[in-house]
């Protein structure tokens, strides 16, 4: 495998973490009042690192991504700081942001059925990114598009370029999405539930493909999912989100084998395992996720937590370090299984 390692000067200028998110708060103005989808999330992504964000629906995980990419709808607004390679993204003018999006920062969407324009061929959609951002001439762009399709293991890439999205299968389309994301060799690839809409058999292939692309290009990946299996296979570090906050973070193995937050533990327990005996019901987490428009004053998980104490309901427990590289937001000192 020959990989050209020379990075352009602008890719090597900045030292330190690639992405620093600091006290990100994202709110939506709705007719029923303000909804706080993200409540003070801070994290860093180093170069070449893969981090996973896990949480159930409505935990704010997708909104973190949307805030980073500047894709919030009109009624949404973010405060705090998102620094990408030393540059502040929040409040950046659109035309400047557009120079970063697609070239240095790319996104893979959940549903490949709807994320491709049905009226443009695969080739047109791929080359558009190149001609638009890098002013590559059309013939070169086509050749590059063909190469990148080959890299994501699409058979007969030359022929596929002329096809419309509806002529490809779901797995194939997600490969096209990944190809599109990788086309400009971004520093950061953001994947929003990239395997949710796919068959289980295809899921594994797509994850392998992401890992392979990362090995080749050294891209950092932020992977958002509610599927813990996906995280286990691909990520270095995991953040568990609940009610718009990070409740626990740490290396993927630690989170899996030694969860320290009651929510993380409940989440892991409600995951079916092949080595368990199959009789009996799968444990669920009782209660409902919090209503983001009316957050309780204390810990968002308190109403569903089996370890809840009076202290939990009074104030939001801060995210505190419990071991090097590990943090949790819980009043309990130690969670005993």
């Amino acid at each position, binding site marked *: 495998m020959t990989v050209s390692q020379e990075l352009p000067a602008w890719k090597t200028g900045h030292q330190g973490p690639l992405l620093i998110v600091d006290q990100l708060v994202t709110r939506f103005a709705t007719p029923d009042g303000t909804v706080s989808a993200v409540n003070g999330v801070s994290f860093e992504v180093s170069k070449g690192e893969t981090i996973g964000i896990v949480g159930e629906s409505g935990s704010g995980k997708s909104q973190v991504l949307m805030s980073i990419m500047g894709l919030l709808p009109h009624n949404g607004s973010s405060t705090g700081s998102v620094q990408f390679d030393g540059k502040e993204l929040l409040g950046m003018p659109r035309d400047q942001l557009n120079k970063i999006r697609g070239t240095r920062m790319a*996104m893979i969407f959940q549903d490949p059925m709807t994320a491709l324009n049905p009226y443009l061929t695969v080739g047109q959609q791929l080359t558009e990114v190149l001609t638009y951002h890098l002013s590559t001439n059309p013939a070169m762009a086509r050749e590059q598009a063909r190469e990148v399709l080959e890299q994501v293991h699409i058979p007969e890439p030359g022929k596929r370029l002329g096809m419309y999205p509806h002529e490809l299968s779901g797995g194939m389309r997600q490969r096209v999405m990944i190809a599109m994301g990788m086309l400009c060799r971004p520093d950061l690839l953001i994947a929003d539930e990239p395997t949710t809409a796919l068959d289980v058999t295809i899921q594994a292939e797509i994850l392998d493909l992401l890992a392979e692309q990362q090995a080749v290009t050294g891209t950092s990946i932020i992977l958002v999912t509610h599927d813990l299996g996906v995280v286990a296979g691909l990520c270095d570090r995991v953040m568990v989100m609940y009610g718009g906050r990070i409740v626990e973070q740490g290396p993927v193995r630690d989170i899996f084998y030694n969860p320290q937050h009651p929510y993380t533990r409940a989440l892991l327990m409600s995951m079916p395992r092949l080595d368990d005996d199959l009789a009996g019901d799968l444990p669920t987490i009782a209660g409902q996720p919090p209503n983001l428009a009316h957050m309780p004053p204390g810990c968002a998980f308190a109403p569903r937590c089996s370890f809840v104490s009076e202290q939990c309901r009074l104030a939001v427990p801060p995210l505190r370090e419990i071991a090097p590289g590990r943090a949790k937001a819980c009043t309990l000192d130690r969670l005993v299984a």
Partner: protein
Amino acid sequence: MSVTPLDAAGIGMPVEGTSLWKNARRRLLRNRAAMGGLVVLTIIAAMAILAPYLSAHAIDDISWDAISSPPDFAQGFYFGTDSNGRDLFVRTLYGARISLMVGILASIVSLVIGVIYGAVAGYLGGAIDNVMMRIVDILYSLPFMFFVILLTVFFGRNILLIFVAIGAVQWLDMARIVRGQTMALKHREFIEAAHAFGASSSAIVRRHIIPNLLGPVMVFVTLTVPQVILLESFLSFLGLGVQEPMTSWGVLISDGVKDMETAPWTLLFPATFLAVTLFSLNFLGDGLRDALDPKDR
């Protein structure tokens, strides 16, 4: 597997490119009904353009010896004459000039203004959309006849006024349809994906929104052309459109209706031309819509 960016050696290989329009043309050529419609329209248009050369009679020639005469090939009255003794054949062709011109020009005006206006309003949304659509509502509420009479009072009687008046009214429907479609499209994931890949708003509207609008827009245009032709007939009938001796299909048909019992050909020929044209337009419109939909190959 090698990752060689801009490897000049690999560029020589041609990859077959298929654009939306190229594909659409190919599919349109295969659609018999649409091609039939296109051929008929071309023939009618050609006849309208060549009208002075196709008939021995001029549009305002009055033959006193052949008033309300049935079709008579010996004298060159292929379609007969009207109650003033004027050749109906040449008048039908001249009528085609006005009717097709009004139909096509007014539809193009409504297409261009309506699509741009509707797409911008729908895409931008919010307060801008609100203001833009309220302007449309206000224009809608102006009575059409009042508007036309006002124009004639200010600018005098002129065929151009018909284009202006009809065009100014027809784009309102188009703008509403396009706005609705745009609002539905705007929240589709591929538009969001385009944002995520750093496309500017104008690029998104041009590359992603407008091509996806083509289907409904095309159907609406094929409905607009006949509507406009009929609207022009109505205006002419009221004396606000074309004036004698110039004529249009609408004028000819309304004259024909008066003489229907004594000289049925004066109604039959212009009405047949109008009906055939409208049929052909509908077939062509259907064909275009199918051709422009990539899922329909």
